[in-house]
């Protein structure tokens, strides 16, 4: 493109140069053609000459009048016109150049001769005899006639020359004007052309740099992404396939022809119709973007999965598609992994379902013997089958407590497996604090009473109702209070309910054995809890705390423990204040 512009500049320059040369030659030749040897070459000379002719004509008229009737008056008139003719002739002679040749010289000589004759006549006239003068008159008249004719001749020639001169001058002026115009036009256009050229060169340079950069980036990105590139020129139908594109299908550099057929022939027969239909709807603008997966035949005969993404380049004014460019990614491995993952997921879900089912069944099976263990022990403890001594009572109580503990473990295990399987759903409701406490506190009172513990609770004023999962909150409270009562031998267990701007805060404070600092977090950990290394002195908490932690966190709250060894523990949980929703 820029080569063409330079050629244009050069051509214009040559044309202008030729025009200027031609114009200059024309002006020069016009000037040359004006050079001549004629005596009268200027307007002023022509005017002088005309005056002389007129003066001579006047002189002849007065002379003729004297000859017809030589009165004193006519004689005076003749003398006056003689003076005028002398003056005019002298004046004309003065206007002629000093040196001359040809007709010019003749005119000059004749004029000098007639002038001296006229001068002579004029000098003698007042004294001469009027009759003699008549004789002289004929000669003088002939001389004047001759001179006048010579003058007329010269003047006619001069008129022609002058006319030519005027024409030449006009042509000259025109020529000069044209030359000046051409020079100005050429200068302006050359300047503009050069400026435009510079600008387009600069733009071109910028464009070239950015094109190089983007090409470089693209090719780097392609290499990095391991994508194959194809570029289909819809006007010539030529297709460029990048080396990576070919390699993906097992082909080397020149093994694939740059036509669209070599592309479509490699698409799986089952996929080709779908691909063509997709491309058609993309060309018709009914798709936002071109992104399709299909299979292509590898050189070795097997098929690979390809993800093809492309975009259409359209010709600006008419929107005609001119270029279709796209990339290929080999997604065979990805698809295989995805299929395997989906498969594994199905198996996992099945396994998880089996596990849940197994746990549910297992818990049923485990409960059945516990029915007898707990039931019969309680039967004896209640003294329904006769009196028992103190030692027997302690032993039976131990069996009973452990039976209860085993039952709690089984329940916790089931809860955790349900949480883990995502089967626990929250069911929110609005309930009052006093309702909740009425359901919880009485269940704790018998054991606390037995141990002689003070079980108290306090609720901050203004707390009325809350929106939460009541059943789970209740289970957590029972769990925390149960543990507190279980691990406190003397003193008290207190439940505090407070609130901040954003949450309710439940604290269970006991005066029991306390928790070692390193165990403060571990007691909520289900895996550690069920592991072989149970937390010393705190065995028997079961899985209740792990379940509680899950239930609280599911509701968006937090749970933690604080303790001073030997002085007691405080277990606290929070529930965020939620808006009542209709869902």
């Amino acid at each position, binding site marked *: 493109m820029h080569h063409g512009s330079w050629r244009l500049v050069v051509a214009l320059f040559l044309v202008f140069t030729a025009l200027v040369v031609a114009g200059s030659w024309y002006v020069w030749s016009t000037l040359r053609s004006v050079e001549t040897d004629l005596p009268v070459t200027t307007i002023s000379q022509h005017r002088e000459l005309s005056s002389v002719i007129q003066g001579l004509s006047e002189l002849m008229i007065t002379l003729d009048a004297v000859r017809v009737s030589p009165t004193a008056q006519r004689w005076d008139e003749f003398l006056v016109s003689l003076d005028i003719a002398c003056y005019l002739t002298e004046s004309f002679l003065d206007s002629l150049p000093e040196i001359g040749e040809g007709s010019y010289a003749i005119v000059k000589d004749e004029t000098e001769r007639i002038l001296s004759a006229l001068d002579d006549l004029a000098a003698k006239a007042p004294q001469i005899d009027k009759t003699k003068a008549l004789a002289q008159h004929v000669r003088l008249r002939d001389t004047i006639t001759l001179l006048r004719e010579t003058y007329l001749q010269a003047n006619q020639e001069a008129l022609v020359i002058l006319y030519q001169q005027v024409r030449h001058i006009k042509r000259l002026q025109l020529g000069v004007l044209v030359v000046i115009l051409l020079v100005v036009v050429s200068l302006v256009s050359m300047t503009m052309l050069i400026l435009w050229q510079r600008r387009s060169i600069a733009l071109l340079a910028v464009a070239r740099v950015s094109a190089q950069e983007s090409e470089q980036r693209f090719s780097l990105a392609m290499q990095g992404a391991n994508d194959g590139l194809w570029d289909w020129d819809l006007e010539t139908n030529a297709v460029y396939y990048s080396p990576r594109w070919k390699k993906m299908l097992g082909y080397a550099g020149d093994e694939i022809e740059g036509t669209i057929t070599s592309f479509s022939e490699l698409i799986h027969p089952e996929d080709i119709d779908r691909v063509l239909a997709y491309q058609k709807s993309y060309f018709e603008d009914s798709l936002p973007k071109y992104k399709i997966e299909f299979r292509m035949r590898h050189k070795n005969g097997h098929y690979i999965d390809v993800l093809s993404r492309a975009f259409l380049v359209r010709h600006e004014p008419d929107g005609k598609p001119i270029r279709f460019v796209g990339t290929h990614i080999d997604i065979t491995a990805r698809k295989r992994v995805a299929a395997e993952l989906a498969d594994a997921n199905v198996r996992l879900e099945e396994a998880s379902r089996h596990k849940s089912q197994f746990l*549910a069944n297992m*818990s*049923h099976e485990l*409960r*059945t013997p*516990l*029915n*007898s*263990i*707990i*039931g*019969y022990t*309680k*039967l004896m403890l*209640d003294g*329904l*089958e006769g009196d028992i001594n103190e030692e027997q009572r302690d032993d039976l109580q131990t069996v009973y407590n452990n*039976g209860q503990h085993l*039952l709690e473990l089984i*329940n916790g295990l*089931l809860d955790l497996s349900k949480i883990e399987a995502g089967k626990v759903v929250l069911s929110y409701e609005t309930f009052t604090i006093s309702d909740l406490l009425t359901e919880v506190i009485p269940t704790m009172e018998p054991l606390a009473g037995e141990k002689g513990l003070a079980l108290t609770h306090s609720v901050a004023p203004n707390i009325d109702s809350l929106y939460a999962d009541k059943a789970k909150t209740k289970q957590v409270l029972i769990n925390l209070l149960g543990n507190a009562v279980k691990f406190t031998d003397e003193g008290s267990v207190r439940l505090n309910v407070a609130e901040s701007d954003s949450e309710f805060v439940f604290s269970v404070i006991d005066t029991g054995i306390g928790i070692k600092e390193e165990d403060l977090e571990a007691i909520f950990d289900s895996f550690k809890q069920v592991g072989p290394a149970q937390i010393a002195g705190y065995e028997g908490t079961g899985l209740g705390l792990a379940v509680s932690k899950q239930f609280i966190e599911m509701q968006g709250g937090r749970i933690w423990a604080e303790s001073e060894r030997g002085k007691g523990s405080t277990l606290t949980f929070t529930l965020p204040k939620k808006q009542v929703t209709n869902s």
Partner: protein
Amino acid sequence: MEKQGAGKKILVVDDIEDNIRLVRKVLGFRGYDVVAAQSGEDAISMAQTELPDLILMDVRLPGGIDGLEATQRIKALPQLAHIPILAMTASVKPEDVRRALDIGCSAFVRKPIDIDELPKQVAKHIARASSAN
């Protein structure tokens, strides 16, 4: 021990002998006359011959007829439909509980049974059934 159950007959249906014996003891001490069946079929025939005041029905029973089906069949008999039936199960699934109540059980007793609670529940439902008649 007050003899609140005097003159009242309870049918216990459970496939495990130990469980029957426990219920028999717990209720027997309170004066109840306890009869037992170990299968669904036995439960239906015994309900007809013994005409108990209340039936304690274990949900899971071996053989063709489980506790829920036995309950349905008993409830379908006009002369037995008034007898309150308490379902017993070790299952903790909420849907099992709901189903038991849906088919006509008066209440639900969770296993392992609480021997302090059981007599209270039995007495309550017998009283409720007799006042309804």
